C-alpha cells in the first residue's frame, strides 16, 4: 500500500461550467474563484473533498433507509413496460445542462 503522496492531494485543474461555477471533480461544483475575493476559498486536499462527497451519498442513503424499507423510482416503474398497470407512462429522460 502506498503512503500519503502530496502530489495526489492536489485537486485536478478546474473546468469552467458558467460565469459563476467551476468543476474540479465530476459533479462537484464550486464557486468560481473570481467571485471569492472578499472571502477567499480554503485550500482543500483532494482526499477531503472526496470524503465530503462520499459522506453526502452515505447520508442520503441512510436517510432513505431511515424512512422506508425501499425506494421506488420512475425508472423502475417505466422498466416494467408490459405491466398492465402502466397506463401509458412514457419516459422523458433527464434534461441535460
Amino acid at each position, binding site marked *: 500500500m502506498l503512503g500519503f503522496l502530496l502530489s495526489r492531494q492536489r485537486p485536478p485543474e478546474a473546468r469552467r*461550467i*458558467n460565469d*459563476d*461555477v467551476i468543476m474540479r471533480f465530476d459533479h462537484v*461544483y*464550486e*464557486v468560481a474563484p473570481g*467571485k*471569492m*475575493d*472578499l*472571502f477567499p476559498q480554503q485550500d482543500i486536499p483532494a482526499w477531503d473533498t472526496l470524503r465530503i462527497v462520499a459522506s453526502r451519498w452515505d*447520508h*442520503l*442513503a441512510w*436517510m*432513505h433507509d*431511515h*424512512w*422506508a*424499507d*425501499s*425506494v*421506488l*423510482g*420512475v*425508472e423502475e*416503474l417505466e422498466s416494467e413496460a408490459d405491466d398492465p*398497470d*402502466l*397506463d*401509458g*407512462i*412514457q*419516459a*422523458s*429522460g*433527464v*434534461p*441535460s*445542462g
Partner: protein
Amino acid sequence: MTAPPIAQSDPFLDELRSILGPDGVRADKPARWNRTRVPAPFPVHRWADYAPDVVVLPRTAQEIAGVVRLANRHGIPVVPRAGATGLNDGAVPLRRGIIVDVKRMNQIREIDLVDRTVTVGPGINMLKLNEELRKHGVMFPDDPASYPCSLVGGRIGTSGWSLIGGRYGHTRDLVISFEIVLPTGEIIRVGDGGGRKIRKSSTGYQLKHLFMGHQGTLGIVTEATLELVPRPEVEFAAFFHYPSFQAAYESTGALTKSGLATLAGVVLFDEWKLRYLRRDDEAYIPQAENVRAVVATAMYGTRDEVKPAARRLVRTARESGGTYLGDEVSQGDWAARHDRYATPLHGRLRTTGQVVPMSWHCEDAAINYSALPQVMEEWHAIADRIIDRYGIFDDWGMFFYTNAAHKPWGDYLVEIDIGIWEQKLDDVNWAGWVEAKHDIAAVALKYGGSITACHGATREGDAELAAEEMGGGFEVMKAIKRVLDPNNIMNPGKYELDTAYDPNAPSPFSGRRTGGN
C-alpha cells in the same frame, strides 16, 4: 415584567440548586450565551440584551414545577428551550430570566404496540426516537426539515408542520396527549378528553390545542404520548420541471387534488429558486434554460398502494406539462429535505456578485392556492427593496408546500429564503429587516392568509400583526394568559401578551438593558 438581573452569587441560585441539584443549574457565561438566540433572525449586535440570567437542566416534571413556583415567588421570567431550532424567537428570553433546557428529559417511557402509542420525555429528538421504533416496525412520522435536531417539546411548543403531513398529519395530529406544568406550577395532562391514549373525544374543551403552539407562554410540556404508524414499505419521490411558473402552478393544483391517499406532500419551487440553484455552488444543479420551475412530490405506504398511485401521479404531472427530472435528482434532493441545516452558509452581493458569509433565514406564511402568484410577486419585491437599500441581504427564492393535514390541497406553507450577512447587522439595517418582515406578514394578511404556517409569530416585525390576524380572538388569548399566568412569568414579551397585564407595557424590542455579562 422586568425583574432585576440575577447576580451570579444570588441566593436565588442556591434555591434553584436545592430543587435541581448542583449539576442542574448553570450560571456561567458560556451556558447562558449559548442559549441566547435561535436560528431565527437575531440582532447579533445586541446579544447581551437577550442572554438569560441562568440555565436550568431539569430531569423531572416535579423539578420544573419547583422552578416555576420559585420563579412566581420572585417574579422572574421562565423560558422553555428544547432543540433551539425555532425559526421564530420563541426560545429567546426577551426579558431574560431562567432558561429551562429540557434536553435531559429524553427518555422513551413506554412503547405500546397494542394501542399504537409511544410515550416520551420532551427532550427526545424524532430521529433518535425512530431509530428505536424501527425495531418494532413502526414510526412517529413528524418530519420537519429540522428532523435530526428539533425535539418533541419544541414541536409541541410551536405546533409544528411536517414535510409528510399531507399523508400523516402535522404535530398537532400526531401528539395524542401530554403532561404540562402550568405557569403556576400545577402539573396536568391534556388530550382529547382525559384519556392518555384516546385520539378523539367530545368531553370538555379541546385543551390539547390550547396548549400547543403557544411558544412556551402557557407552560412547559414534560411528557408526551405520540402516534405510531406502520413503517412504510416504500418511498417514492418524483421531481418535475416546467417551462414557466404558471405551468408548474397549474400542475401543482392538479397533483394536490388527485385524491391519492399515499401522497405525503407536493412542493412548488419558483423561478427565483431555480435562478438561485443555477447561480450557486453548494446546491448547484445544471439545468437547461427551459427549466423555469420545479414541482416535487413524495409518497409513502405499502408497495401495493404506492406503485399504482405513483403511476397515476407521474401521468398527472406529465399531462399537466411536467417533465421528469430523473431518479437521481428526485431521490437525492428528497432525502436531503429532512435535514435543511445543510443549507448554504454564503450568499452573493448584488452589486459585485462576490461571495460573503450569510446565514439562512426564512419567512413563512399560510396562503390559499388562489393567492400564491400574487404573494410571490409582492414578497420578492420586498426582498428586492432591502437588497438594494442595505447590501447585506440576498433572495434565495420561494417555495409553496402543501399545508393541510391528511389532504394536500387548499392552502400552502409559503416560504421565502433570505440570506443575511449577520456580521454587518447594526441598528439601522436591523430596523430595515424588521420593517421588511412586517411588510411580508402584512401581504399574507392582505390575501386572507395567516402570517405563519409553522414557525410562530412572536418575532419582532410580525408579532405586532398577530392581534390583527386573531381579531376578537386576541382578547380571548389575553384573558386566558392572565388567568393561567397571573404573574406573567412564562416567556414574557412574546406575542405582545404583556399588554394583557398592562395596556401600556413597553415592547420587549425597545428599551433594552445594556451591558449584560
